[in-house]
């Protein structure tokens, strides 16, 4: 084997510098690995290929988790956002979800600069066309001009680039993203190595010229008055923001779009990959929900200064002139000029049931997959997998135990567990409903849940973060104690209680008992109870918020924790990779087949595989004696 003398042997080579690749590189580097980040184009590091936004429901929680584990997505977002909103504020604390509009160019630049600031990360700009595999182990990559770069592990984060095929109407051409080449070679090699591959589809809307829009014809959607942020570190908060706008399609728009249906690659069978149902193209929405005479569109700026606008909700692969004609019938878009049309893209993915819980492939040792290559969609989903793959690549090289988050630890745990056990037939996006313990997995406590774990694991630069976690947890505990001990009189509170439609007090009670009423929140109490207001003055808002949640929802939290503990007992029973399931005749045939294929690491994981019944689990437990 010939390795080019230009390169040292890296601990980890990351192929692809999107959201997954960047987090993978940073995670491995901050664990102490020597990392090579290889990308086809260094000017498109951390591109936001689709909408210029981070977070949202469930996704915002993931960004907070990435941050708590020492990843950079939250920091980069905080530095480059142009608008912040906390979604779902009217719902319970588990649903609060941060979302930011980003300056797309600044976002990419900030990421690149942060990567460059890391001494453990080297860069190489070239297409990677293959892996170097020796004795069933990944030991490097091959580049387009024939170089071989040696490494102890490889993380593939190819996004939509593997045999990417872009569709606009009846035209289609190879490409990984608008204006960029597709990557070839890797899929064929992996298939030869025994991997199963599939095809997925996603899409993106047109970008338009903000100077050509009539903003007065649209509703304004401003950011929060009191904007929050993603990172638990000292990142800046927004002092000014750019608004988004809302407008709607109408039946005339729909009629024009329908004239292009016969040339739609989605409808005429040209596109064979599966697209996400929750992120449909506009033609899909019109087709499937014919009774709706309008669809909402979010008109989102792509940055502070640029005039480029992202038309969220108008994703399309119809012929460009159909997109253009239809768009001009949308209120505010009468004179719209297009920068580029929407398109659909098909790309290769590898069903993630071929992975272990540490995102390492079962076929090739020290080869890791993260992001869209695993059939997911979204920057946040990709970034979090990248982080986990980077960490685990480092651990594998160091021959240490893999790092696995449980479903009750983090959304990231839910994401990876779902992927490796259930696989996915459409691009997988996180929803809060996928998490059975979402009351525990909140955006406000990601630091408390995860920062100590990452610190113990050996992630560098966690000292400040840990100090904050300890302070926050300590403060919350002190506040909770106060509520349990201090009392409040009927005189102070009854007016408030009656006003909020709850029964007045007859005698002095502990503050906690009033706060546990659904109709009363901490801010109400603070206004009416002087000693409480005085006591809370020395605490920051984040700690007070955590204490309030812990107090107010104690019953639910305890119950959910109990359920999580119960489930986790099964996670502690290790199965190992070498069980001969074929020998266990008591298992159902389906269970045998699935267990053989997926080789779960624990009983808990086995129990979540479809086709493995509770009685199969009993059988497995019985056989554990072996």
């Amino acid at each position: 084997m010939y390795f080019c003398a230009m390169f040292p042997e890296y601990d980890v080579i990351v192929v692809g510098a999107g959201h997954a690749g960047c987090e993978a590189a940073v995670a491995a580097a901050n664990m102490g690995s020597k990392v090579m980040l290889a990308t086809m184009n260094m000017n498109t590091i951390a591109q936001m290929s689709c909408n210029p936004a981070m977070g949202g429901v469930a996704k915002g929680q993931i960004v907070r988790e990435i941050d708590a584990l020492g990843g950079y997505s939250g920091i980069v977002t905080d530095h480059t956002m142009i608008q912040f909103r906390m979604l779902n504020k009217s719902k319970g604390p588990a649903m609060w979800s941060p979302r930011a509009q980003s300056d797309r160019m600044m976002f990419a630049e900030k990421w690149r600069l942060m990567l460059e600031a890391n001494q453990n990360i080297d860069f190489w700009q070239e297409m990677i066309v293959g892996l170097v595999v020796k004795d069933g182990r990944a030991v490097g990559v091959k580049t387009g001009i024939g170089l071989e770069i040696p490494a102890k592990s490889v993380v593939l984060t190819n996004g939509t680039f593997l045999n990417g095929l872009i569709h606009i109407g009846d035209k289609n051409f190879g490409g990984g993203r608008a204006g960029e080449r597709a990557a070839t070679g890797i899929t064929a090699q992996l298939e030869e190595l025994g991997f199963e591959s599939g095809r997925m589809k996603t899409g993106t809307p047109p970008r338009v010229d903000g100077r050509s829009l009539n903003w007065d014809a649209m509703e304004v959607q401003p950011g929060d008055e009191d904007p929050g942020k993603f990172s638990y570190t000292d990142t800046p908060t927004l002092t000014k923001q750019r608004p988004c706008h809302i407008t709607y399609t109408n039946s005339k728009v729909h009629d024009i779009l329908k004239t292009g249906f016969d040339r739609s690659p989605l409808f005429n069978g040209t596109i064979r990959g599966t697209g996400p149902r929750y992120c449909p193209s506009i033609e899909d929405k019109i087709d499937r929900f014919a009774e709706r005479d309008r669809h909402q569109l979010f008109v989102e700026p792509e940055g502070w200064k640029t005039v480029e606008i992202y038309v969220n909700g108008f994703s399309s692969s119809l012929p460009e002139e159909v997109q253009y004609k239809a768009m001009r019938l949308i209120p505010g878009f009468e004179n719209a000029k297009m920068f580029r049309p929407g398109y659909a893209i098909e790309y290769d993915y590898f069903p993630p049931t071929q992975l272990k819980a540490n995102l390492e492939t079962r076929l090739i040792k020290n080869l890791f997959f993260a992001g869209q290559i695993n059939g997911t969609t979204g920057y946040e989903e990709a970034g979090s997998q990248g982080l986990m793959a980077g960490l685990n690549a480092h651990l594998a090289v160091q021959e240490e135990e893999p790092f696995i988050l449980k479903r009750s630890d983090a959304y990231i745990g839910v994401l990876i567990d779902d992927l490796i056990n259930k696989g996915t037939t459409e691009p997988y996006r996180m929803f809060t409903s996928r998490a059975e313990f979402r009351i525990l997995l909140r955006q406000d406590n990601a630091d408390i849940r995860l920062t100590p774990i990452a610190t113990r694991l050996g992630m560098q630069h966690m000292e400040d973060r840990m100090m904050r976690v300890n302070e926050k947890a300590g403060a919350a505990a002190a506040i909770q104690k106060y509520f349990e001990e201090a009392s409040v009189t009927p005189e102070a509170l009854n007016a408030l209680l009656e006003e909020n439609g709850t029964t007045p007090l007859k005698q002095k009670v502990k503050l906690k008992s009033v706060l546990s009423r659904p109709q009363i929140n901490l801010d109400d109490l603070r206004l009416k109870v002087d000693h409480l207001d005085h006591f809370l003055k020395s605490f920051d808002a984040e700690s007070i918020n955590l204490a309030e949640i812990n107090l107010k929802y104690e019953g639910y939290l305890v119950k959910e924790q109990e359920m999580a503990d119960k489930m986790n007992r099964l996670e502690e029973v290790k199965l190992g990779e070498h069980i001969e399931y074929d020998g266990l005749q008591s298992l159902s045939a389906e269970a045998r087949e699935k267990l053989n294929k997926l080789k779960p690491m624990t009983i808990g994981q086995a129990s979540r595989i479809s086709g493995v019944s509770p009685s199969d689990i009993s059988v497995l437990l019985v056989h554990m004696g072996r």
Partner: protein
Amino acid sequence: MTNSFSPDTIVALSTPPGQGAIGVIRVSGPRAIEIVDYFFKGRNLEKVEGNTVHYGKVEDESGRVIDECVATVFKAPKSYTREDVVELSCHGSPYILEQVIQLCLRGGCRLADRGEFTLRAFLNGQMDLSQAEAVADLIASESEASHELAIKQMRGGFSQEIQELRQELIDFAALIELELDFGEEDVEFADRGKLEALVEKIKSVIKRLLDSFHLGNVLKNGVATVIAGRPNAGKSTLLNALLNEERAIVSEIAGTTRDTVEESLNINGIHFRLIDTAGIRKAQDEIERIGVERTIAKIAQSTLVIYLFDVTETKPEDLWSDVERFLEGSKVLTAKSKQIYVANKMDLNPYIKPEEYYKEGLISSENLITASAKNKMNIEYLKEKLHQLVVDDPSLMDQTIVTNSRHFEALNNAYEALDRVLNGLQSGMTGDFIAMDIRQALHHLGLITGEIHTDDLLDSIFTRFCIGK
């Protein structure tokens, strides 16, 4: 997932259902002794030594005596499961056993999963591997058999209702999840009033199912099986043979009419209500005519008919004309009753060829059984045949589904979870907390209908609402 090492207390009947004069109920877990002691009136079990046996009465909450029984107390780790264990030996009536198990459940037990006692024994180090493997095979085979039955039950009409219930719950849960995961979408969310009405509706369906569980209903709702034939054909002997074999008499209920008697029989988990009738023969007088009419009416209301004839006295032509007469008489009222013909007293005339009785479209090797009720010859086969008929055509069993404590417990838990959902809705809790209780309800119902996954909820959302930007 209920198979865990959770230190909860489990209960189950440890003798095969309906197969003995004595039924043993086993309770195992940290609260076993306390729970049994609550309803066991005799020695204070919490104060007795391990490995001791005590006589006492079982009383329900209202003080009604359910049974006299013997409690054997084992203390951890000196028991089968190495946990605290109480074994209650009661009289073998399914009614009594069911009542005692219900008392345990109300006291805080959970129904044991198949093989769970053994599993605990194994996990607590009580068994060696070869024993454990035998148990594993048993778990697998039992669950397979019960799974098959469950699947077949699911095709019946009554289970249709459970399927509909499941779908309604999924759709309801989807409405809540829609608000949570897609709050930013341009869709209309259900208002609280509508959600409350929906929960009420689902609760009322579950309530009705729960109510059907009472034992009286189980008796009434077993598969109605009429034993008919001429007076001397041996009907009573057959009835006794069926019952004695199984010793599964729940109780004897005098028929609503003087000339019919009902008994209950459990064959592999399916309840049969056996109805003995006055013999069918040509009416000699007014009273007998009434008796015959009543018999025909009974047949008309029945699901299965066991038609018995004496091979020593019955010519094929006589059988055919009798059968046609009772079928004719009941035809107006019934469409789906099935018949089994029993050629009785074969011991007295072993040279009879059953083929002689075959008649196309009526009697064939499929539904004719040769037997001797007196010598209990082929009685097992008859029972298998009865069981098979019901399993093959679950619509016959329409009303028997909630005879199973496991189903009852699951429905009851689902009901309680929905109660909390309703409370949450009424007190203005936000959707994320309400969803927690809905998930519990889905989980419990899923124990009957099969697991309900997030994907089911998402499917429901994506097909009903236009989601996505």
